[in-house]
């Protein structure tokens, strides 16, 4: 019998598929925080393509974009919405700034939520985000 491939949770398959069809920027990670996918709409906001992103763990994607609060303070993983969804398994929302891959600092409103395939089976998390101008308009 051929060696069995690693197979993903159906919830992640469908989350990735939904993200791929949305015009809203979406970022999907697995239960360990590994980047699984970000969609085409997210690419200009993050300043890089998904194809060039490679395998990124939570500590990598949480620091490479230098997330800061609106006072300019650096935010650790546990204080950004996707980190909260990943670590505490709770939904979260926050406005913050990132330095995108193209060097531009952008202000984003981010909503993140955990994905449970069953009540006790955490399989990953999703962040949906919107770029805002300095007045906070989406």
């Amino acid at each position: 019998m051929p060696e069995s491939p690693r197979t993903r949770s159906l919830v992640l398959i469908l989350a990735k598929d939904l993200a791929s069809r949305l015009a809203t920027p979406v970022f999907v990670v697995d239960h360990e925080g590994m980047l699984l996918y970000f969609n085409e709409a997210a690419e200009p906001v993050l300043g890089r393509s998904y194809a060039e992103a490679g395998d990124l763990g939570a500590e990598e994607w949480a620091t490479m974009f230098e997330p800061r609060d609106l006072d300019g303070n650096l935010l650790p993983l546990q204080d950004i919405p996707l980190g909260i969804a990943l670590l505490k398994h709770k939904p979260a929302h926050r406005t913050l700034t990132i330095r995108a891959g193209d060097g531009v600092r952008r202000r984003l409103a981010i909503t993140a939520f955990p994905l449970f395939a069953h009540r006790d089976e955490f399989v990953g998390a999703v962040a949906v985000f919107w770029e805002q101008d300095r007045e906070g308009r989406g």
Partner: protein
Amino acid sequence: MRVTVWGCRGSLASPGPETVRYGGNTSCLEIRLSDDSLVVLDAGTGIRPLGVALAGEHLPRIDILLTHLHIDHLEGLGFFGPLWDPNAEIHVWGPASPTRSLEERIGMYLSPPLFPIHLREIPSHPIFHDVPPDEWRVGPATVKADFINHPGPTVGFRVLDEDRTLAYIPDHEPALGVDDLATASPEWVSGTGVAWGVDVLFHDAQYTQDEYDVRVGWGHSSTEHAVTFARLAKVRRYVMFHHDPQHSDEQLDRILAYARELWGEDGDSIEMAHEGLRVEV
């Protein structure tokens, strides 16, 4: 393993002169494991004649594995003879929902007003098990259930017995969730964890491509998707299953011929399920 098809129709039982060769009963397979113990896959109307055939056979235990609770996979359960034998030990395995156990969900059907007798009054007092996330043992076999792409909680089953494997995914839409099934990475295709490399796969082939195109999201496969999925999962033998109730015997003959063209070399490795079909795995 010895497999007998007792029902292979999808959605709705469809008896009549136009379906007499492939059969009109809904999903039900009988598996005899290497020690002759009995596993039943799904409880469509095909489980009723299976129960009749079992009369007089004193089985110590029967395991019924339900992929999901759509009516064509459950409607025969109350008409399965051993269920009414107080001495029968019957275990029913299937998916829970996020809020209800398998037993609670089946109780919604096996109770008034949809059924005259309440579940708790059934003499055999079947034992219900929510399918576990990990493999489990049934007699000499190891069984694995994975959630697959079909509306509502639905699993496919993989049964391993004496190094032979069978996969059963009667309702499945693998094309949903990938851009192109033919070139998709197997890890991102629903159902590959169940079907990968099995000796025999029973899999949804409900629609023609034209029918599928106006039923995207209904949870089933076109002929093209079914063959592509079986090839992607590197199965050795594929049995097309869950025939649309509108498809006559003649239409199913044509669909099989087309599927064999798609399969290419070794076209005998693909066949159409029909009632009474026996498969040695």
